[in-house]
């Protein structure tokens, strides 16, 4: 990275992590009031909702990048898609865990087959599988191809999963009312969680590209796309 980019990256991370720490601090009872019906555990909600929205955004990035690869067949689309899938799986794990914590508090059990939890579980499975299939395919081109097709299918599946879980029995849906102070906290959480996601995504993307350049070095002559560094000038083999 050039030094300009380095400064930008460092600044970004300082801001993001500080913001994130601050939003955690915001959860103090004197700033964010405790919710009436549920008690202190309800504050898990401030994690849950922004992370859930960002999971969806990450899934959308996978979708778009997958289409991009199928259309242009350039490997950087695949780097982007797999980075986004990793973030989606990670974030979805948080959604699942916070959902389960919420459930334990609200209904006394770690797991119920309620629509929301089931939906989170299926989503989690969809993107974890994306990550699991990649090492099983040796050829980078095939891997990118299969991943892209799956990435598109997974995203198209999401609305259907949403509809399907509506048929599942819902146990005491609890709606909570948000006081104004809570809404403010929630907003800050959205900001910090989103920034975190984009930061992680771009970092992961850069790592993917770097790893690919090092593993599959191509000679200068045959290289058409420059990623900044060529590891060594080797003869290209088809």
């Amino acid at each position, binding site marked *: 990275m050039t030094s300009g980019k380095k400064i930008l990256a460092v600044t970004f991370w300082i801001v993001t992590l500080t913001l994130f720490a601050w939003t955690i601090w915001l959860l103090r009872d004197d700033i964010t009031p405790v919710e009436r019906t549920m008690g202190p555990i309800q504050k898990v909600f401030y994690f849950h909702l922004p992370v859930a929205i960002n999971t969806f955004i990450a899934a959308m990035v996978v979708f778009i990048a997958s289409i991009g690869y*199928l259309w242009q067949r350039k490997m950087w689309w695949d780097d982007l898609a797999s980075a986004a899938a990793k973030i989606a799986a990670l974030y979805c794990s948080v959604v699942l865990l916070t959902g389960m914590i919420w459930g334990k508090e609200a209904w006394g059990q770690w797991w119920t087959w309620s629509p929301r939890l*089931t939906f989170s579980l*299926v989503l989690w*499975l*969809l993107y974890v*599988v994306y990550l*699991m*299939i990649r090492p*099983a*395919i*040796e*050829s980078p081109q*095939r891997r990118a*191809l*299969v991943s892209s*097709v*799956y990435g*598109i*299918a*997974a995203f*198209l*599946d999401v*609305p*259907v*999963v949403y*509809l*399907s*879980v*509506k*048929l*599942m029995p819902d146990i005491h849906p609890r709606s909570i009312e948000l006081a104004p102070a809570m809404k403010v906290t929630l907003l800050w959480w959205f900001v910090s969680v989103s920034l975190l996601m984009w930061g992680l995504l771009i970092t992961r993307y850069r790592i993917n590209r770097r790893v690919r350049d090092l593993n599959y070095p191509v000679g200068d002559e045959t290289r058409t796309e420059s990623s900044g560094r060529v590891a060594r000038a080797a003869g290209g083999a088809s």
Partner: protein
Amino acid sequence: MMPLYRQVILIVGKDVRIEARGRQTIGLVVVLGILIMVVLGMGLGAGKPISGFSATAILWVAYIFGGVLCFEKTMAVERHDDALAGLLVAPIDRGAIFIAKLITNLVLIAGLALVVTPVAILLFRFDISGHALGFSIIIALGMTGFAAVGTLFAAAVSSTRLQGGLLALLVFPLSLPIIIVSTQMMRSLFEGAGSMNVLGLGTLAAFDVIFLIMSWLVFELVLEP
């Protein structure tokens, strides 16, 4: 060039002839299905009768494991000796290959269902008499979407070496909505109001439409000569 339906008929005919010669796939898959019924039946059903809801879930396990094997086989036929190149270089629509493979797959899993379902009815004392039509519609809709997804991904992975678990891994999570909907619909059919849930039917239909279209559009892109 021949009209599309003629191309499809030719290719399906060829695949059926290959399958008829050995009857390997359908035999393997039916036996596997029965084994799954027996294993689950011994564990769950010996003694108490099983609800329509549970029986549907057990049947889906048999259908999806058997189905994945069928999908692998119909594409594997083209992988040997570069047979696929022979199809790709012929004056036919690439879409015809997709439709033909999909039809062959549907025929195979329908055959599987026709054998395994009566076995389930027998082993689990599963009484579908009042709702046979509803059951059939739900399963048929579910299988169509499942086959669309399976046909597409079988083509995508057919040239990779680690085939076995890979296709199952890809297809199962995508197909979960089908299983959720059909089991829930069966529950309401047998234990609840006794009528077909419209939202459920709509969801199954939506799944089918989305994945039939997606597979049709993308299939050509995954065929690498």
